[in-house]
């Protein structure tokens, strides 16, 4: 079944890392791009991130994620290059519009940051199954109820998406048009959305009854079916990441 995750099941060293270490890497990588806002340095972080994607055998899978942000990247270069307040040094001009070096520099940093953000997130989400991630977070103290919420969303959305075609069919059978003028299309929104909302709220009632009857409201300490996975080099890797961040801060303060 489609459970709506980007996780790619493969056997790689990155896959075997502790989800929390990968999460720490995401935070550290993004933080570093702010601690040392130099294009060359950020490019270095990006290089490491790309390396991780390659080692994790998921580089190809990260490209579709990147394309979603292409417009943002494009827009950053255009807007900053032409209009950044600090712009002085002209690079080239398009008719009345002038493209500046300062703006390009700002855009370069921004774009590299976006790439690091998307890249490091991709490392995390492409190589970690949501179940593993949530189970790990719960063991580190996250509320099991929140964990339940996250996991159930991943299953419920595909289920809800499946009902949308039934709803569309039912309303079209009653003569509703989904094509035509803007007004026609706006008018179609309620008949389509109404059943989705009512259905899912009604279902929350039934599902909460079912959960209650399975002891979901119990204040007893929960146990887990799956044994805790052991992660090698956990502390070491976590330590290295933190050390690099501290080193970055020290460098920044000293320089």
């Amino acid at each position: 079944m489609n459970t709506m995750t980007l996780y790619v099941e493969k056997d790689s060293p990155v896959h075997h890392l502790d989800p929390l270490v990968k999460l720490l890497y995401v935070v550290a990588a993004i933080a570093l791009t702010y601690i040392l806002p130099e294009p060359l340095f950020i490019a270095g972080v990006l290089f490491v991130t790309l390396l991780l994607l390659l080692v994790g055998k998921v580089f190809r899978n990260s490209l579709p994620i990147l394309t979603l942000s292409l417009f943002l990247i494009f827009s950053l270069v255009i807007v900053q290059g032409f209009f950044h307040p600090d712009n002085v040094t002209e690079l080239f001009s398009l008719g009345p519009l002038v493209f500046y070096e300062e703006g390009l520099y700002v855009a370069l940093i921004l774009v590299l940051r976006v790439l690091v953000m998307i890249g490091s997130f991709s490392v995390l989400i492409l190589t970690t199954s949501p179940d593993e991630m949530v189970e790990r977070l719960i063991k580190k103290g996250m509320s099991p109820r929140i964990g339940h919420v996250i996991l159930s969303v991943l299953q419920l959305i595909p289920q809800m998406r499946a009902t949308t075609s039934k709803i569309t069919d039912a309303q079209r059978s009653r003569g509703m048009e989904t094509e035509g003028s803007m007004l026609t299309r706006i008018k179609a929104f309620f008949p389509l959305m109404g059943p989705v909302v009512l259905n899912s709220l009604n279902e929350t009632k039934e599902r909460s009854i079912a959960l209650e009857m399975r002891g979901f409201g119990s204040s007893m300490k929960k146990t887990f079916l799956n044994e805790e996975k052991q992660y090698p080099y956990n502390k070491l890797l976590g330590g290295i990441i933190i050390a690099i961040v501290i080193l970055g801060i020290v460098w920044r303060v000293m320089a």
Partner: protein
Amino acid sequence: MNTFELKDVAFSYSLDIQIFDGLDLTFDSRTTAIVGQNGAGKTTLVKLMKGLLKPSKGTLLIDGDSIDKQTAAQLSRRVGLVFQNPNDQIFKTNVLEEVMFGPLNIGMSRNEAEKAAREALRKVDLESKAEDNPYDLSLSERKLIALSSILAMDTEMIIFDEPTMGQDFAGKEKIKAIIEELHTEGKLVLCILHDMDFAAEVFERTVVMNQGEIILDGPTRDVFSKKEVLEKAYLEQPYVTQIAHALGYDESFIHESELINFLNKND
């Protein structure tokens, strides 16, 4: 409408699984039940008839005229389809408005639509709940609301998908009465059913489907006498028929009264 014909119809959802391949079937003024296991293709069949799906091959004809070019919305004036799950369509906050949605869509004035809606609600005996919120009613009542929302559109043909599921005795009696009334009004009635007893009791003709093919088609009595074929399609005979068998009679009974009369005579 006198006939609804499917000629040499083929359809598949994906390349590897063919649902229909050269299906020929004609519906006429006889009330017709379609029975068969899940996955037999019953719902796909009625979606094709409603224009919600388009066949990859073959034609559909109403009174001999092809309807291949018509959309579901256009067909909604002529063919009504009551879906199995009322929750997939109900979106208004009051029952009357919900039932008026279809009639308004096909161009009735508000007055006409309200009249049609109230009349349809009267038929399902829920006129008193016209101002209620549909979600304050039970699922079985909502099913009847969905049914009346199609009745109100006054189509020449009406198709029901599992109308009796979840209904108690009173609900089934209402549906039976509606089907008989539609029939006397000269409308085409077609009904997908899991409930063999209801099929046996109410319908003149029964079609048995199995894996996209029609394995039995004829007067209801004849169809339900074919125990072996039914078993192949994982279907049971109606209770009356089973009781008759258990008592050692091979004749085919589909109504309680028939069996009672027969046993009385035999005594």
